[in-house]
């Protein structure tokens, strides 16, 4: 082996006995382990969540169209290395041919062919495995069986064909979007479709192509399809157009990134501190080696080799530790998640070692360079060479470079930068506030207790360490408290936010001739609700000219232009809408008037007085915007982008919609209503909410778990810094005992210091968690913030416990006879 690596190896081995080098190794090991673990976990959760969402879609990507897909379109998709399967979904009435007195019911029929679905699975009773309904067979949901009085093995009538029911559909992905996903579902084989005769040209149907493939292929295909979509086509992917799952996924990833960033910052901080102390310990050795004839370049290489050798060992060790932790976490997660997490990408394994190397080099270079430049005279003077401006500049550049690497590594530079800034500013702020609080607390103690007087000096002596400790612990406890509370609290508060009379049923497809009967039914059963007409129309004109050329490309992508809108008319302003500008209807207008929802106004750049033209069933209807409404879309009441003044739309064919609340026993009224009005479609919102609740809970659990790991990382790293400061503390204790303090006094002083530090950190964390939660309440939930008194007890208790336990585990008692020897050794 050449001389320099050999020297480096020998140096490394001999330095294994020093606290600084041990701390450095431990910190890097932890950094590599945690980075690998968090990346693996993040990758797996991301893949898991994506797959979960994919399960709802039944595919990775869905091309949805109101017309059959063209051959060119299908050819261009099949050119990609993806798996596809076509689906046709349409509303249709079905009936029980054996019981003609039972009224027919409206269902959502899906005609599918194998393979189906491409993601997720269909659950049936009896189980059918991977099979699909065969020719002449149908799988139906329980609601259909119940309502039509059918059972497995019975026949049902769909159009001109009869189908034998071979299974009850328990759950299935790809229910379609919008209301069709809520209708009772029926699954048939696609080869039966033509014979049934239900799908004539012009029939309202949704033609979908489910697509599955690798993330890269899907990404490429999505990028290719998106700009070429026709007006009647929509692309549904995991992130787009799936408001529920898309947002949830985004939040989950944001949480993970926050946790990862925090863990990385903690590791970097510990490595930085270790390296600084390590290099200070190396001044004399470096001066000696330079004095013996090594040149600065060779010295630099020795230290770089030393770091590299350490890195190789630590990378292997870190990977092994991460792998075992990962399998432990996986077994824990398997109880948390309904299905096994997928394997992480091979590249995810490299992230930890790669980042460890970057950290070691970028953080290690400045102190090592200063070692190579140490003057030989240091041997004689023994003082620490002052840091020159160039060295400081290099250190700052390396730190900036490391920050950039971290940002790139997190793949969300802007969000991460904001987080980084928040964490740094928050950390510095918390550090100084904690220190000021400690001083405040010590003053009255100093007036009463002798120990308090010593504490005052201790607080000055350890102020930097206190600032660092409190910054990290306060931030970590805040994050953990916020995530922990928000996972349970926010969800329940979100649910509690809805008034108790929030509707839990929607009824659609009410035909005009059923309206008065339905009204009577609802009045007779004291169901409180209002019926709204619903007419489908497309927005085509603005102020007498086609709207599209008048809009920006961004505005053209707006949802309100991409599909037909549900329009309504009403005499009075809906109670649950807020009039934000303009006025409700004039008495005798020349032109029909409309009230438009605020977001649509903003998105399309509309203003009061603009005239909008709608294409309703091939006819043009013009109206003037006379008011702007604020609409709470999550109010579970019928809401419309556009409401017309009475008289404008009555002549057009419409259906009606309503929503109402039924609790407990009264829920049977829903079934009664369906029996009386079989063609209505009833949507159960409680089901929808419980799906959302499950998602939020799962998201909360995952992020709390990841953050819990980061907290462990923070605790270990803080223990490392405490270990580093141990020598200094022992020296201080030795000096104090020599100057007349007893061993018991120094022990009590340590206890008091750790206890107070813990209390102050816990109180600060409580305060910042309350503020953050209040912010979340106001910004996200729009509800009054509330206090969490138990936070103010648990956090200080937890934090004091941490400081006292860690402090006393690391603190080694100092016997009196060791004191003078220890002081003498430092001479």
């Amino acid at each position, binding site marked *: 082996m050449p001389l320099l690596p050999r020297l480096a190896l020998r140096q490394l081995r001999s330095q294994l006995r020093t606290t600084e080098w041990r701390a450095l190794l431990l910190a890097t090991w932890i950094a590599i382990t945690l980075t690998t673990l968090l990346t693996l976990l993040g990758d797996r959760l991301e893949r898991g969540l994506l797959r979960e969402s994919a399960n709802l879609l039944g595919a990775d990507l869905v091309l949805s169209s109101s017309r059959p897909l063209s051959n060119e379109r299908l050819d261009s998709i099949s050119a990609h290395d993806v798996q596809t399967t076509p689906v046709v979904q349409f509303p249709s009435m079905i009936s029980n041919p054996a019981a003609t007195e039972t009224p027919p019911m409206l269902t959502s029929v899906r005609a599918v062919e194998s393979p189906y679905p491409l993601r997720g699975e269909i659950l049936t009773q009896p189980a059918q495995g991977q099979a699909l309904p065969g020719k002449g067979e149908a799988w139906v949901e329980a609601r259909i069986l119940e309502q039509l009085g059918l059972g497995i093995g019975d026949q049902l009538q769909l159009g001109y064909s009869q189908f034998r029911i071979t299974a009850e559909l328990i759950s299935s992905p790809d229910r379609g979007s919008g209301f069709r996903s809520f209708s009772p579902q029926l699954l048939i084989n696609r080869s039966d479709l033509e014979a049934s005769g239900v799908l004539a040209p012009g029939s309202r149907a949704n033609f979908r192509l489910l697509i599955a493939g690798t993330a890269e292929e899907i990404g490429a295909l999505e990028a290719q399809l998106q700009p070429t979509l026709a007006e009647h086509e929509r692309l549904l992917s995991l992130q787009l157009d799936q408001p529920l799952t898309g947002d949830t996924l985004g939040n989950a990833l944001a949480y993970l990134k926050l946790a990862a960033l925090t863990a990385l910052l903690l590791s970097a901080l510990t490595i930085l501190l270790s390296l600084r102390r390590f290099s200070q310990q190396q001044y004399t050795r470096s001066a000696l080696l330079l004095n013996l004839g090594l040149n600065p370049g060779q010295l630099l290489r020795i230290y770089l080799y030393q770091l590299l050798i350490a890195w190789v060992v630590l990378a292997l060790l870190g990977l092994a530790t991460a792998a075992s932790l990962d399998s432990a976490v996986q077994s824990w997660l398997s109880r948390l998640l309904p299905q096994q997490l997928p394997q992480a990408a091979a590249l995810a394994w490299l992230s930890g070692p790669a980042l460890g190397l970057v950290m070691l080099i970028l953080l290690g270079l400045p102190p090592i360079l200063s070692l190579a430049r140490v003057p030989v005279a240091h041997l004689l003077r023994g003082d620490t060479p002052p840091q020159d401006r160039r060295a400081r500049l290099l250190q700052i550049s390396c730190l900036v470079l490391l920050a950039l690497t971290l940002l790139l590594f997190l793949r969300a530079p802007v969000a991460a930068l904001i987080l980084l800034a928040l964490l740094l500013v928050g950390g510095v702020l918390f550090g100084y506030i904690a220190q000021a609080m400690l001083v405040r607390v010590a003053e009255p103690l100093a007036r009463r207790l002798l120990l308090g007087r010593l504490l*005052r000096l201790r607080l000055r002596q350890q102020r930097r360490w206190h600032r660092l400790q409190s910054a990290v612990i306060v931030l970590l406890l805040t994050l953990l408290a916020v995530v922990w509370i928000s996972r349970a609290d926010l969800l329940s508060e979100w649910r509690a936010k809805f008034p108790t009379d929030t509707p839990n049923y929607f009824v659609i497809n009410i035909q005009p001739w059923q309206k008065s009967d339905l009204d009577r039914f609802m009045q007779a059963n004291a169901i409180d609700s209002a019926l709204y007409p619903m007419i489908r129309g497309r927005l085509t004109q603005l102020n007498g000219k086609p709207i599209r050329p008048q809009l920006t490309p961004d505005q053209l992508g707006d949802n309100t232009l991409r599909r037909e809108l549900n329009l309504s008319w009403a005499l009075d302003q809906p109670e649950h809408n807020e009039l934000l500008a303009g006025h409700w209807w004039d008495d005798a207008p020349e032109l029909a008037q409309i009230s438009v929802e605020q977001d649509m106004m903003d998105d399309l750049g509309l203003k009061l007085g603009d005239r909008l033209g709608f294409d309703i069933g091939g006819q043009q209807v013009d109206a003037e915007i006379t008011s702007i409404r604020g609409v709470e879309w999550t109010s579970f009441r019928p809401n419309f982008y556009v409401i017309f003044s009475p008289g404008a739309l009555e002549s057009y064919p419409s259906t009606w919609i309503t929503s109402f609340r039924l609790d407990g026993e009264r829920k049977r009224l829903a079934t009664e209503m369906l029996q009386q009005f079989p063609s209505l479609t009833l949507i159960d919102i409680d089901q929808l909410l419980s799906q959302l609740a499950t998602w939020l809970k799962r998201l909360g659990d995952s992020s709390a778990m990841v953050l819990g790991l980061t907290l462990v990382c923070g605790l270990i790293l803080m223990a490392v810094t405490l270990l580093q400061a141990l020598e200094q503390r022992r020296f201080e204790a030795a000096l104090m005992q020599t*100057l*007349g303090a007893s061993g018991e006094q120094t022990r009590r002083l340590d206890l008091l210091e750790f206890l107070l530090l813990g209390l102050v950190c816990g109180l600060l964390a409580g305060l910042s968690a309350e503020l953050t939660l209040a912010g979340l309440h106001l910004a996200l939930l729009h509800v009054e913030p509330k206090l969490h008194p138990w936070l103010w007890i648990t956090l200080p208790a937890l934090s004091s416990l941490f400081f006292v336990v860690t402090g006393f585990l690391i603190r080694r008692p100092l016997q009196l006879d060791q004191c003078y020897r220890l002081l003498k050794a430092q001479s």
Partner: protein
Amino acid sequence: MDQSTLSPTMIEARALSKHFDTEAGRVELFTGLDLEIARGESLAIIGRSGAGKSTLLSLLAGLDTPSSGSVSIDGHRIEALDDQQRAELRARKISFIFQSFHLLPELTALDNVRLPLEIRGTDNPEQDARQWLAEVGLGERTGHYPSQLSGGEQQRVAIARAFATRPSLLFADEPTGNLDEDTGGAIIDQLFRLNAQQETTLILITHDQELAMRCRRRLRLHNGVLTEV
């Protein structure tokens, strides 16, 4: 501890022995040492490196326990005192000056001098500390940190810290070991001036013959035997 005012002897060591057990066997530093140091006396203990001077100092200061024999400080038998009583004795009567000054780096000169006064529970520690810093010529530098002071200045802070508690016994272990000749000379002048002024018993450990000559009495520790020179 009231008998201390009566005793003319500050330190009395009888049949003092110290040995260490190592893997290679027992190392005897000294056996059967007898030593008496009068109140207000200045004594230099000289000897080559490794002779056991510092161990002897820590025994005489009550910081270490002898393998056999006894040490009395100002009439108090060290072996009979518990940890708390020994600490009290040190706080009230004993001070140290070290070769490497041993100031706490994060504390100002003022706070470093205050430290033993706070340990003792003195009434006006800040006022006393300021007075003693002025006494050693650092009245203008009370707010400076050790890193902002020269070696000589740091040792003067250490001298102020040592005298601030008005000790009756002062141990100085190679006090000029880390200083150049001129600075060391000035420091020693100051040390002896204050020592005379405060009537402190001074025990100085050094291998500097010239410095040793400034003490009234000199002892050489060689091969475990203490001889007057």
